[in-house]
């Protein structure tokens, strides 16, 4: 049910913003738009299907947790 909703929404977004780009032959914009849209919708679909994936913020966590330790170390 939610999956259908997501796909419909994605279609609507494509129709509203993607097609005009194609019509105006702004190909670079179009492909960036499509990539981002597919990426976002893909993630949403994965979430709707309850598939567990690693948190996207994991990368930032990995980099900055040691920084956090360092900063707190300065203060204690």
């Amino acid at each position, binding site marked *: 049910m939610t999956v259908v909703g997501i796909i419909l929404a994605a279609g609507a977004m494509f129709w*509203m913003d993607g097609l005009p780009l194609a019509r105006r032959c702004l190909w670079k*914009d179009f492909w960036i738009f499509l990539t981002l*849209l597919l990426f*976002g919708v893909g*993630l949403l679909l994965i*979430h709707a299907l309850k598939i567990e994936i690693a948190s996207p913020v994991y990368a930032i966590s990995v980099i900055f947790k040691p920084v*956090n330790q360092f900063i707190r170390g300065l203060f204690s």
Partner: protein
Amino acid sequence: MLEEEKIGSRQLAVLVVMFTVGTSMLLVPGELAAEAKQDAWIASILGVGLGLLSVLLFWKLGDRFPDRTAAEYSELLLGKWLGKAMSVLFFSFCFMLSAVLLRDVGEFVSTQVLTETPIEFVHLLFLLIVVLGVRLGLAPIGRAAEIFFPWMVLLFLVVVGFLWPYAKIENLKPLMEDGFKPVLLGGVQMFTLQEYVIFLMILPFVDNIHKRGSAMLKGALVGGALVVIVTLDCILVLGPNVTTLYVYPAYVLAQKIDIGEFLSRIQIVVAGMWFLTIYFKTAVSFYASVVSLGQTLRLREHRTLVLPLAAVMLAIANIAYPNMTYYVDFYRNVWIPYGLVFMVVPPVILLTVSYVTGKKSPSCS
């Protein structure tokens, strides 16, 4: 550019106030009380001071390139590859911030108000309005902020005023019990939650070049004062222990308002005020991320990015933090250092390079 219209300096000031209050009013009192206990209010004053210093930094940097955003002049200053890397970093910060803010709203509503509603729906609704605002542009957002500003101040005064009878001065004692270090740490934490660096993307859209910096400063001062007052109120009325216990102590504060027998349970009205401030913070951050990505990728029209980025933002807000524990841990241990580094390091680098190489915008005055 997304804009034909520019926003006025007063609108900038109001936006900065909304931005500062944003999620800080919800999160700062609890965070600071956990670090500094009854000195949380001192830490908040320190945080505001640090925030003001950073505004000065951004003012200076913004004045070097009055008609370009940080994403644009990164490339000018650092060359093609480093510059592009820097502008991608800017984008990632603005974007991450927007996603985190969305989650903030969702988490708050899910915890306190709509406890059975799936958080994704709260995200979706809020995001729809953010998208609406950003697609319309910065000027409508600025005007809306101007309209809502007096209401926000009024509600704020109501909260503070009606809680006055419950304040107990002795909750502030003993002063500086554990020394200055916890206060400093708390102040730094609050400073990172202010995230003013976003405005490096917004400054070029403000019409009066000379008034930009002072508008930002005024906004930061007023907004900061509001957060300090709320923190002070939390400690005075609830006490440091209870402030640390609750996730959203300011909401508990609002619950205590009880005038005669007729003005009570207005905490949701106060929450409504927070929805407003969080909205403007999210809208501005999202706008900044759209502009920065658009400029990094040299797109003709930034507007096309709004919807797909919004989809990704929704996904991140839903997925990135599986539960409250993760979310709180993320905020304390990842977002704080991330924000701290980002607020300070890139602008300082950019400013230094700009002075050293003497590069600045040819159209500056």
